[in-house]
């Protein structure tokens, strides 16, 4: 039986759907061309530029794409809202007199559960954020709304200094620098890192800000296939082997740039393997934690925290296995032995399966990493530059770079974000500081006393429920089990408006993603989970999504899942609940591998 992780990651599109999808796009383009021809004949005024001496702002392709493709689904995008972007939002109902060429806002709204905003920890509004908002308002009596001067001049307040220190401590780095815009954090820092003899190796699906940073940089750029570690290693090896183009001199440095959570894919990057490659080949590692900071990890510390946790768990499992030789099946499958490592929660079948999957997946990587870095290491120390934004989990605005003191000192002197751009507004600084403070419980106090950590746990719970349900009901979802970003594949472009409209009519606000943002056939709808949603909210939404899945026929995985459910029911009936799925896999790679050394 294939493991759950591989099933969840399967993006195999049924071939009738594939053909239908391509056919739909073909028809859209043909119809668009026909419409253009008629448009040119019948309504030539709109096609003629008023003055022939000035080039049109839109190129022909832009115009075609905009009016003939994008406009077919334009009512699904860019909905304004009339409330704070919390768990429930008021989405403005728009109306149009000319088929959505132009639109205006009506007074009516949809009351909808918000799956669109990146409000992972629920600090966008409401009770969770009341305390933070009070601090923001308090800051107005000491500072104006802004500092009104670049950081290098008189734009640096003691609030900024405190936040930089707090942030550096929070993610276990020597120093940090904050910027007023997340996009500009990447796009101004990356050019500062590499000179003309440096190389940036970037994931193919990295966010536009990283791409812009690369474009602004004078260094060389190479791209590896998304999440393809073998290709990354090959790229790095080739780069070192061949050196710089033409001269074949060696590179002065190689920087690997990846993201923690890919916002359109929902996947968590394979950080252990990337760290292994970076360490083995002497590359520097830059991790963009725009989505993962706060949303991942037991202490909200992002993807490093997450993998520290997973690896601690795996180490614990190893120690346990080795301590009871000959009884390894028992150790793997006796839940009472696992109590403390799952943070006090009773592990269930899924936890153990995931752990086992991790054990298989990271067997080689762990061995290599332990060989290079010793038995105890933290991923926080292995990543050279940690970048993140405050827009998402922290419900503020801006971004940070954390790294060694030298690096941050250099950035403070040289990067445009610090030298000539405006610094973060003091109010936003206070919001972030307050959120970070809420991640640490008072000394000796239980975890539940820290507001932020409660939200972290809620988010994890919501994620588990939501992903589990969608998977069980045969939807094709992408990404990692623990990722709060849940893209669900729609494939056919005609399902985009259908799903969106049906969902919002029922009170579910989603984000639908189509061609330029993802590959042509893999149109998807994206759910971003939030700690602000209650269990009832989630259950209610899932019920509707289930219905929608039938209406729009989105349950592409139906057969496979039926089989899976049947298998599980049988296993349960036999009583050996935790033996299921491990019988044939315990002999393979991981366990024997570990025992051999």
């Amino acid at each position, binding site marked *: 039986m294939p493991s759950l992780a591989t099933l969840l990651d399967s993006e195999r599109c049924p071939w009738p759907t594939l053909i239908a999808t391509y056919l739909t796009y073909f028809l859209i383009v043909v119809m668009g061309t026909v419409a253009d021809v008629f448009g040119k004949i019948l309504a030539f005024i709109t096609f003629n530029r008023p003055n022939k001496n000035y080039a049109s702002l839109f190129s022909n392709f832009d115009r075609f794409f905009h009016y003939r493709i994008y406009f077919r689904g334009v009512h699904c995008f860019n909905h304004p809202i009339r409330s704070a972007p919390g768990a429930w939002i008021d989405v403005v109902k728009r109306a149009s007199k000319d088929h959505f060429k132009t639109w205006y806002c009506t007074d009516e709204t949809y009351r909808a559960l918000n799956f669109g905003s990146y409000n992972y920890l629920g600090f966008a509004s409401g009770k969770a954020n009341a305390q933070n908002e009070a601090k923001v308002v308090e800051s107005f009596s000491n500072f104006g709304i802004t500092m009104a001067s670049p950081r290098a001049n008189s734009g640096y307040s003691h609030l900024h200094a405190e936040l930089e220190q707090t942030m550096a401590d929070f993610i276990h780095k020597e120093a940090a620098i904050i910027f007023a815009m997340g996009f500009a954090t990447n796009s101004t820092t990356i050019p500062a890192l590499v000179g003309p003899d440096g190389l940036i190796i970037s994931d193919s699906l990295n966010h*536009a800000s990283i791409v812009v940073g690369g474009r602004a940089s004078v260094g060389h750029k190479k791209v590896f296939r998304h999440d393809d570690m073998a290709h990354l290693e090959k790229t790095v090896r080739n780069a070192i082997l061949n050196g710089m183009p033409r001269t074949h001199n060696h590179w002065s440095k190689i920087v690997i740039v990846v993201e923690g959570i890919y916002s359109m894919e929902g996947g968590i990057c394979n950080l252990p393997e990337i760290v292994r490659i970076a360490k083995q080949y002497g590359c520097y590692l830059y991790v963009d934690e725009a989505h993962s900071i706060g949303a991942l990890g037991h202490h909200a510390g992002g993807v490093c925290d997450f993998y520290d946790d997973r690896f601690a768990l795996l180490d614990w499992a190893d120690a346990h296995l080795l301590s009871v030789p000959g009884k390894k099946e028992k150790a793997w499958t006796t839940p009472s032995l696992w109590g403390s490592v799952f943070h006090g929660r009773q592990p269930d079948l899924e936890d153990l399966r995931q752990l086992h999957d991790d054990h298989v997946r990271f067997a080689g990587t762990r061995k290599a990493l332990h060989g290079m870095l010793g038995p105890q290491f933290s991923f926080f120390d292995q990543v050279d530059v940690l970048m993140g934004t405050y827009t998402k989990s922290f419900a503020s605005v801006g971004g940070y770079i954390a790294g060694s003191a030298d690096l941050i000192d250099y950035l403070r002197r040289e990067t445009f974000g610090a*030298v000539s*751009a405006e610094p973060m507004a003091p109010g936003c600084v206070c919001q972030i500081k307050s959120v970070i403070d809420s991640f640490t419980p008072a000394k000796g106090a239980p975890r539940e006393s820290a507001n932020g950590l409660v939200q972290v746990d809620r988010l994890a719970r919501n994620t588990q429920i939501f992903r589990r349900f969608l998977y069980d009901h045969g939807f094709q979802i992408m990404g990692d089990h623990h990722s709060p970003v849940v893209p669900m594949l729609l494939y056919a472009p005609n399902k985009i408006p259908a799903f969106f409209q049906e969902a919002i009519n029922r009170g579910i606000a989603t984000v639908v993603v189509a061609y330029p943002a993802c590959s042509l056939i893999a149109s998807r709808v994206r759910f971003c989970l939030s700690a602000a949603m209650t269990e009832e909210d989630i259950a209610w939404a899932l019920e509707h999504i289930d219905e929608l899945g039938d209406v729009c026929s989105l349950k592409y995985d139906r057969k496979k899942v039926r089989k899976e459910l049947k298998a599980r029911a049988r296993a349960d009936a036999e009583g050996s609940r935790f033996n299921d799925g491990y019988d044939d896999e315990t002999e393979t790679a991981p366990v024997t591998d570990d025992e051999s050394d």
Partner: protein
Amino acid sequence: MNFTQLLEHLLRVSKLTDVFSVMWEYLNHSGDPVMIVSQLVLIAFVLWVLFRYNTPNSKRPREVRPADFSDRFAQFMTYRKPLAPKSRQITQDRYTIVKHGSLNDSTPSDNPVVTRVKDAAGDVVDLTDFSTTDFLRLSRSVGSRQAAETTIASYGVGSCGPRGFYGTITPHMDLENHIGEVMRGLYNELIALCGKKWAPTSAESHAAIAYSFGYATVSSVISAFVKHQDYVVYDEAAPSSIQTGVNLSKSAHACAYAHNVPTGGHSSGRVASSVESAIERLEGAAALQTRDKQIRRKFIVIEGISAQRGTLVDLPAVLAVARKHHWRVLIDDSFAIGVLGAKGRGTIEHYADQGLLSDPAMVEFIRDYVMVTFTFSNALGSIGGACFGTKESAEFQTLNGLGYIFSASAPPYLCTVASHSLRTITDESEADLATLRENAVYLQDKLVNAGLPVVSSRISPMKIIKMAHPDGELPEGLRRADQRAISKFDDVQAKYANVCRVLRAENGFLVDRPAFSELDVLPSPIQASLRVSVSNKHSHNDIDRMVRVLRTALVSEFQG
């Protein structure tokens, strides 16, 4: 040998014989034995290079063998540089702001021109602030703070998403509509003044679009409109935001025009001539190089008041040039909005007030082909930026503006504050604006009378003071300068830093100096200088005292 190979071979032979015959002719006629010998050696060398690998036995692979990997890797690891490049040891002003003087406090720092600062030693002092560019002190006004508090109460702090993904909240739309309304009002006044019976601009024809960050506004706008094949002409003294935009556009036809404004004075058409020469240079070069008959998008990027020099652009002359050559104009009004014009609507209003934009053709040009961007971080006392232009251009940016699509939207409260400030400026502050401009002129006169060389225009509230010093200027920026020039330049900057420090520590004034980065992408000149920004709240007494001590400090630093 198949047909294609035969053909290729024949072609190669025929070309080679051509070359040889031409060479032979040339050598026969030159009659210089040294020349002939050296040419023959060269030819032999070229032939050797060409045919070196062509014999089958000596075929050597061009690539390094995989077995070399360990060598290459060892070499790479030996010469690998640390991630952080070694930074220049420049003097930094190490102080932090502790408190802004606010309007409604009963504390001694009641005065909005006072800022409480903690210096490197940890001492807290109250300074008279000539540094912040919040020219009307709207960021500290009671109204702004109330607007912010109300917005936070109903919309929270952050917007938690980009504009497309439920990040457009009512304040964002209100702000865009408001900016649109204000700027359309200006355009309609222009249309009314020129005496033509044109339809006034409306929400269907012109719109504004808001960005979440001032620095990213103009760079996004430029990189959205200017692509590789398009043309752009920009000021050589443009701030890094414009330079970034030009760099990101990767335009093959980008050219800087000379800033060319006489020190401290009004520019009287000299900018226009340098713009025109840049345009002619670009178009001339393009006409020679390409057979591309398609019309390309062409933009002149100017600043109302230059962020680096504080000089006012001669807008009518630039517009005339642009109209003549059919270029669009992008005005970065960051320092002019809320400063120039009777109602603070920027450079266009400033010149319209003087009656210089009343030509109908000019008004039509402004209406159709001019875009205005500005940041909220100066006179508007908030964070963010906006671009105003035709509806088509706004729509284009919603699809192509990098900072608009991919960045999270601004916190709603910052939008409300910007909107509130804009309303205050256009509706209530005619007197305040007059005071601000009067202060600016007063400061300029005082500085000039004190014998200090001011680069900026009289009307600019931000003054750049540049002492005559041979090393205080790098004509091609830091990146292209050599090490000696940079260290000399840094010495000059250290002098200015020292002046700032003296004013802070001994005289109680906060002034600053522009900082420069060695990451500048385009070869643009930089000048070490001192910057003084005045607001409408400064009294003449403040200005007098500041100029007095500034003069003493500068003179003792540069002549002592």
